[in-house]
């Protein structure tokens, strides 16, 4: 604390006692964050980077192994598999969530008095604890007796093996994830309600039909929110863990899902806390971080082509 204030105070020797007082008080208020930042963010980041060059099982002191962990990243077939699974999931999940959420938000936006009721209907699944979602959907997705395939059977369709067929396990997980679109729906609904009605009136007078109004007013006006959900959902879905771990990992023998459902963060977690390969897990974490950063930068860079910022 003293060291911190000394560093900041010296270059501003001309400040009045009152200003200095304010500054010290401000630093005191943010000091919990600063301590936490050092102990739980900055320090661990550096430590994680260091650990990535070691072999470390917590019980024995870390052993420096140079680039071995990073070489392993390139050659480990399970790593490629898990990264591929996570990317596959993200590519499917993110656009679908955004489309379904927008569809539901458009529906909700037209509901008059009962809006609160339907908002609750669509939001409740997303406050259901992820472990319960996983346990429940193991049965909803069950190929033989699950709700989905029973429903498909009513339409005369033989449903796929959502939990057993390696080709259908990830689509099944995407289906499950769509049940939890609630908060994205609420965000889109708020954005839709913020579009000034005059814009639609003006467009109607100019003879624009429903689709044209949607395409040229609604979409641009909510594009900021759409972009936000794109970035946030991409980052989150690359890190999917809890539902899938609940369904297929832990003590259970999960058959085909042990490969088809092995997502990046599940593999990382197992490396770190089941096989105690802390060094390799740290290298994996940094690879994920770099991938997320690159994707986010690309999304930010391309955003000005399609995101409309009012007043910008």
């Amino acid at each position: 604390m003293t060291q911190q204030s000394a560093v900041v105070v010296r270059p501003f020797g001309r400040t009045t006692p009152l200003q200095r007082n304010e500054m010290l008080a401000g630093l005191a208020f943010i000091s919990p964050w600063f301590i936490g930042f050092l102990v739980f963010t900055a320090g661990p980041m550096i430590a994680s980077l260091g650990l990535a060059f070691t072999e470390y099982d917590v019980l024995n002191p870390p052993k420096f192994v140079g680039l071995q962990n990073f070489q392993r990243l390139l050659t480990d077939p399970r790593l490629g598999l898990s990264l591929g699974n996570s990317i596959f999931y993200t590519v499917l999940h993110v656009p679908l969530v955004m489309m379904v959420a927008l569809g539901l938000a458009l529906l909700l936006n037209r509901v008059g008095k009962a809006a609160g009721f339907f908002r609750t209907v669509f939001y409740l699944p997303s406050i259901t604890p992820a472990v319960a979602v996983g346990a429940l959907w193991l049965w909803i997705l069950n190929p033989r007796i699950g709700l989905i395939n029973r429903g498909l059977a009513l339409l005369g369709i033989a449903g796929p093996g959502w939990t057993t067929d390696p080709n259908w396990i990830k689509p099944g997980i995407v289906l499950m994830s769509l049940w939890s679109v609630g908060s994205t729906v609420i965000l889109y609904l708020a954005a839709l309600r913020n579009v000034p009605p005059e814009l639609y009136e003006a467009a109607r007078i100019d003879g624009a039909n429903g689709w044209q109004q949607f395409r040229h007013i609604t979409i641009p006006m909510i594009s900021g929110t759409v972009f936000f959900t794109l970035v946030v959902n991409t980052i989150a879905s690359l890190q999917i863990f809890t539902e899938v771990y609940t369904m297929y990992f832990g003590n259970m023998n999960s058959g085909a899902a042990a490969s088809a459902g092995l997502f990046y963060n599940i593999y990382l977690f197992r490396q770190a806390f089941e096989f105690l390969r802390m060094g390799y897990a740290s290298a994996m974490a940094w690879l994920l971080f770099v991938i997320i950063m690159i994707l986010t930068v690309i999304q930010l860079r391309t955003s000005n082509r399609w995101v409309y910022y009012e007043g910008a």
Partner: protein
Amino acid sequence: MAASTPETLADIRRQQAQRLRQAEIRRLLARIVFIALLIGCTIMFMAPFVWLISASLKVRAEVFNNELIPDPIAWENYINVWQAAPVLAWLKNSVIVGFLAAATVTLSCAAIAFGFSYFRFPGRDTLFGLVLATMMLPGAVTMVPVFLVWNGLGLVNTQVPLWAGNLFGSAFYIFMIRQFYLSLPRELFEAARVDGASYLQIWRHIALPLTRTALIVVFIFEFKASWTDLIKPLIYLYNTALFTLPRGLKAILDQFGQGGEMQWEIVLAASVIVTIPMIVIFFLGQRYFMEGIATSGLKG
């Protein structure tokens, strides 16, 4: 409108009436499609809940018969689950951990956000940028070293790591509360300063009461996050007696579900028990949930 082919008044009237009828039919059709969609979506979103509650009340042989109403209704599933696993202890653990996590993060973030909004000092905005930047960091990067920190402190296999990190704030909530502080007029605080109030006093007696809504939003969000979290309990808790509900449900699933003893009615009853408190909290604090989501989109 400008087209003026000579027509009798009756013709025009007839055409107008027809056009009106067509528009009405189209509106009616649109209305029907709209209602059908709404009902269809509602059924799809509610069906898993209905199935869960119904199946959790069925006898073992009938759990998967997909009948809507259980017959007979097996209330004993909910008794058996308490006997099969220490669910009551887990419930208590979840409540304690959730409360501590929510209370500490609300208090620390309220203080930190005040530091970032009211006070003027060099480097403040850079530091705040750093706060926002940490939101981008995947949890996996710090997961291992943070575990080593708690391990070094001898606190692994206690519940402390599940909440104590919250004493130091959390980026997203700091951002959120700061938004609320910034909407308060500065003169409010200046006046109190002139009257001789200390900074701590103006925070406690002016800033906190005026941002009650934000604080409740943060409390509810963090309680929900803590209540639903599986990763931290998986990493830090080994003793069954220390488990929180999600970790306990995972243990029940492993023991009684897939590859285990196949007593799914136990698993499903436990799933209901984990979920119901969240639904109750949602109905009590609905307004705050909506407010919180709306603020989270502010960045967009």
